[in-house]
């Protein structure tokens, strides 16, 4: 039990000390996470909408597949990306292994199915309401998807936040493709894993508390933005 107390102490000391190393790690964590979620949104939102709206052969199989890929094991994604980017792999020449870019790629792969699958559900529900109207207006598929995504934007934020949570917490994939190299690819989660394996449990928990704190800040910020946007909407 004293470990928990110690953990809060560690967390507090780290923050109060404005530790430069910690700031570097937090900065990289944020950069990697936001980049990955951004990419996942750019792919996942339209993909989810197409899965909800489209009527093409194989759609059901694709829906099941994307949903199943929410269960992609991070270590497997890490390995697959590693094998692609490794010097011996097909994309080795890009020299991306053990860089933040590799971590972003791996996380984007993990998060995209989550955002696509949740988007599909949200858009499906709204589509039930809008479908006949939009078709009666002669809207084409692209216009239809754009309308649905826009009008569902407040609900879709939750999908994005779910993806963000996954990316923020993820360690298995970034560990493999980033290598947890100090000052280069060390992020909060890999640092936590490292301290855990050193047996520095209080420090690891302290870092975890800081990470959860960051997650709260980000969520509060984005939800606050949504609230004020909702209020100002209808311009």
């Amino acid at each position: 039990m004293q470990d928990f107390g110690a953990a809060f102490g560690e967390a507090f000391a780290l923050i109060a000390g404005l530790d430069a190393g910690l700031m570097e790690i937090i900065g990289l964590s944020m950069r990697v996470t936001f980049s990955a979620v951004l990419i996942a949104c750019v792919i996942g939102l339209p993909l989810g909408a197409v899965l909800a709206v489209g009527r093409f052969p194989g759609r059901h199989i694709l829906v099941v597949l994307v949903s199943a890929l929410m269960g992609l094991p991070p270590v497997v994604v890490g390995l697959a990306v590693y094998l692609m980017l490794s010097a011996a792999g097909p994309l080795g020449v890009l020299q991306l292994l053990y860089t933040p870019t590799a971590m972003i790629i791996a996380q984007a792969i993990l998060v995209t199915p989550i955002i696509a699958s949740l988007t599909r559900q949200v858009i499906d529900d709204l589509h039930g309401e809008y479908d006949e109207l939009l078709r009666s207006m002669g809207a084409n598929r692209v216009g239809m998807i754009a309308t649905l995504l826009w009008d569902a934007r407040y609900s879709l934020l939750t999908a994005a936040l779910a993806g963000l949570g996954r990316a923020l917490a993820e360690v298995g994939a970034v560990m493999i493709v980033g290598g947890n190299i100090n000052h280069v690819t060390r992020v909060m989660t890999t640092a936590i894993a490292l301290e855990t394996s050193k047996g520095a449990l209080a420090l690891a928990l302290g870092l975890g508390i800081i990470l959860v704190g960051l997650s709260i800040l980000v969520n509060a910020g984005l939800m606050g933005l949504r609230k004020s946007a909702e209020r100002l909407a209808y311009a």
Partner: protein
Amino acid sequence: FNTASAEEKFIVVQSTTSTQNSGLYDALLPRFTAKSGIEVRVVAVGTGQAIKNAQNCDGDVLLVHAKSAEEKFVAAGHGVSRSDVMYNDFIIVGPASDPAGVAGSNDVKTALANIQRARAPFASRGDDSGTHKKELALWESAGIDLSGASGGWYRETGSGMGATLNVAVGMGAYVMTDRATWIAFGNKAGYGIAVEGDDDMFNQYGVIQVNPKICANVKAELSKTFINWVLSKEGQTAIADFKFNGQQLFFPNAGDKPNS
């Protein structure tokens, strides 16, 4: 990613968690970088994974502790040559209650036999790492057959040294570890060294340059500079100087007998 030429001067070392967790690199590398201007990026993973990564050319230098696997690596042409760098030793740690009554022993075979007889829980890494292979060899030389014990008193954790120590502490099991990891380990929870000092528990670390003939991307010059420095007087002194809570963790032994 970052292509500024100043930052291009780096090498990747594939290594094991024991060296990283102990803090050795944090003490060693700044000295080297200050002198040479070469940044060293350490990827610390399981020994098997480190060797595999090096085989895939995803590193310039390999620094691990699994001598036979290292020699195979060189023999297969993946590495240029192997040199001893340093050593320490393995120890068996256990709970203060010492259910198998092995504390204070310096005879590992007898100690293992006692543990087995008492059916006292024993945590094994079970991950084919250098440490794991060493442990299996010790059981064998003690004449103990482990088949059927796994999942009972003998528990294979299938994870790294630190994780296995955490597990052992969590369930009150004996566990074999390298001394460096143990000294630097933070979650000791009343555990102490039970068995140490047997000649059979020697732990040798070696360094290998990944073969640039096979891996075109290997920075041959930079990695040679690094290896030479580690093996040099200066590097060896730095290793000897590294202390944790006043205790020396690694003992340099380069040049005792380089083998290729």
